[in-house]
């Protein structure tokens, strides 16, 4: 019945109690599991979208729907261009977040501040892009319960295309927004030397996890709504 002796000594030490088996404090473990549960929230949304799409005969062509660009003249159709800019904004803000976390590990306050500011700017830029896109779609007559677009084959489309689009991108946008708020709080705490006093920048790391998760969700939302 001796189970502990069969494990390698290193492993037994990890799980033996009195310390974290993951070498990380509880907050980070909690953040990871929170993100897992959030993944199931988003997963449920996207899978619902897929289910409804699979149970419907026609579906609008995303390239016909998302083809506008700010300040472009009316006749110009540029599918995928605007959303690819949004995607790159989010990827770059994710990179600056990694750099902030990295700077935090080296106790480099200047680096943290600089990169957090860049990340916040990226987040706000993304939200602005989304606001423009929503506003533009709304001006075309799209909203919850309203779908001006036809199916790809020219038949009448149900409203579920816009319903899901606004719900899921809205929910993602809400996450980006809360991520920006969290990042601003982290920036203020850094500027107030809170983390210098604590001797570690673990909070930045946890905020970073959340921010990358938001980016991760966008990878899926972007692919599923704009490409597939």
């Amino acid at each position, binding site marked *: 019945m001796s189970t502990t002796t069969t494990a390698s000594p290193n492993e037994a030490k990890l799980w*033996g*109690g009195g310390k974290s088996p993951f070498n990380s404090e509880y*907050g980070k*473990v909690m953040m990871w599991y929170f993100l897992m549960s959030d993944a199931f929230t988003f997963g449920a949304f996207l899978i619902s979208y897929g289910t409804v799409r699979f149970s419907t005969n026609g579906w609008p062509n995303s390239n016909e729907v998302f083809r506008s660009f700010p300040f472009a003249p009316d006749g110009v159709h540029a599918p995928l261009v605007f959303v690819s800019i949004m995607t790159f904004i989010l990827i770059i803000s994710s990179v600056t977040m990694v750099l902030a976390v990295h700077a935090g590990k080296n106790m480099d306050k200047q680096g943290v501040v600089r990169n957090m500011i860049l990340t916040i700017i990226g987040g706000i830029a993304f939200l602005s892009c989304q606001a423009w896109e929503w506003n533009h779609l709304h001006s075309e007559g799209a909203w919850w319960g309203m779908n001006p677009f036809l199916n790809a084959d020219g038949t009448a489309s149900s409203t579920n295309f816009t319903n899901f689009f606004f719900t899921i991108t809205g929910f993602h946008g809400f996450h980006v927004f809360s991520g920006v708020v969290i990042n601003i709080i982290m920036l203020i705490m850094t500027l107030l030397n809170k983390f210098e006093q604590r001797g570690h920048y673990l909070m930045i790391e946890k905020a970073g996890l959340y921010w990358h998760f938001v980016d991760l969700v966008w990878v899926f939302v972007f692919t599923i709504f704009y490409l597939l």
Partner: protein
Amino acid sequence: MSHEAVLHGHDSHGHDEHGHHEHHDTFLTKYVFSQDHKMIAKQFLITGMVWAVLGGLMSVLFRLQLGYPDASFPWLESLLGKWAKGGQITPEAYYALVTTHGTVLVFFVLTAGLSGTFANFLIPLQVGARDMASPFMNMLSYWFFFTASVIMLSSLFVETGPFSGGWTAYPPLSALHDASPGSKTGMDLWIISMALFVVSSLLGGLNYIATILNMRTKGMSMTRLPLTIWALFFTAVLGVLSFPVLLSGMILLIFDRNFGTSFYLSDIYVNGVGALSNEGGSAILFQHLFWFLGHPEVYIILLPAMGMVSEIMSVNSRKPIFGYMAMLGSLFAIAILAFLVWAHHMFVTGLNPFLGSVFVLLTLLIAVPSAIKVFNWLTTLWRGNIRFTPGMLFAIGFVSLFISGGLTGIWLGNAALDIYLHDSYFVVAHFHIVMGVASMFGMFAGVYHWFPKMYGRYLNNSLGYIHFWVTIAGAYLIFWPMHYQGLAGMPRRYFDFSIWESFKQFAELNRFISTVAMIVFATQILFLINFFYSIFKGRKVTVLNPWEANTLEWTTPINPGHGNWPGEIPEVHRWPYDYGKDGHDFIPQTTPVGADETGTH
């Protein structure tokens, strides 16, 4: 400064603070906004008990209607007003009562009241921690639950009544304001309440997981954890992964209700309103989303009871639990299978039959770990030196009910049989026995067993025995006949069976069931009296370890303060089930392994 050093510095600092810092507790910080896991557990327990009484009362009211469909009770009108015009419950009120009874008992009593209470109470005590990983989040978890409770309670008093479309809240009844009176404000409050409840269970669940993984005391390896902790761990995992799916489903439902979307709606014609413009949705989608939570939810309810029963049984049989690793494995298997079988609730929705057969297969697989657990409990009892405390009786009662209810699960898991039995009283009997009453028994067992630790006093044993025998006999007398009614085709959720020729034969039986239900409910009042009387006037606990158990919670003072152990947290040297070993009746986990001891776990 390196990463690891930071972590441990941080950790030990936290502990010191809990251990030596004396709080200046006011009434508000000690009893209301408490961050002590033991107080939060009691808050969960008592709120859950309030809901259990309300939910039980509702079942008495609708059993009154089912048992005496022609009688009129003037006192009902003075109690319910327009919902019982002329002393008879109206159909709307009946559906509202059934719905609220289901919602309240499943979510508020058996989820929050059961795992909320015992996860909060037992996890820090049994793993050897000062408190939860985040006491503040733990407090928030309770207050979200409390707010959800208040909102659900307020829905009982709105003019159009509480939601009345069944606890599963299937659209279109839940999605259209015009579908029924309860679908108006009552449903809005229902959704808000459930959303807050999801937040509460997430905050709680994350805390439980982090505490079990990160805060175990020295020597408390995962395989030295009591089975209660393992069960609560899997419960928390199930909750964290499945409640978000319900949340998504609810968000889509809110949009359907208020923003003109049609996620769940298609081809709807409402009397007096006309054809709705909502097109292209699928009501089955909601059922999928709901049951993706709903089935794990069944195990969220059941697993804590299983864990506590394992622990109580081993302690009171004075024998090690039989097959500790098999118990772990079956808990793990149940936790995984819980996520794979949700569509067996949907065999009659028009589910793809081939997909349905996959779900049949996966569903029937659950019988394997369940049977392993049952045999392990029985073999734990076998030749044990059994002490029949009320807690032990309830634990044995749990196993009995789990077997009786589980066997009918095999019937219902088969699509071919389920298509006949679906939505009949057979289903009502099945899930009430296996998840309702059985989990209640687990909860009672836990309360009787850990009451001395909670309040430093004993519950009255004689009242406990009466409580147990009436409840178990009553449970079988109520639900056993329902199997026959269901096989005869009697559908659930009907307001009045007396108008059908084919169900007239059951009039007598329905009256019998209703009478027993009232007796059983009255007996629960007896338990409540016992509970509240004993908190203040019960016999005092005078020894640290009244049950002579091995687990860590009995090494704390009789009335542990915030921080649990006044000195150092004890170190653990063995698994918690060394009963009747090497001539010792029991060897606590804190006793070091002797040199001449036979094989240690």
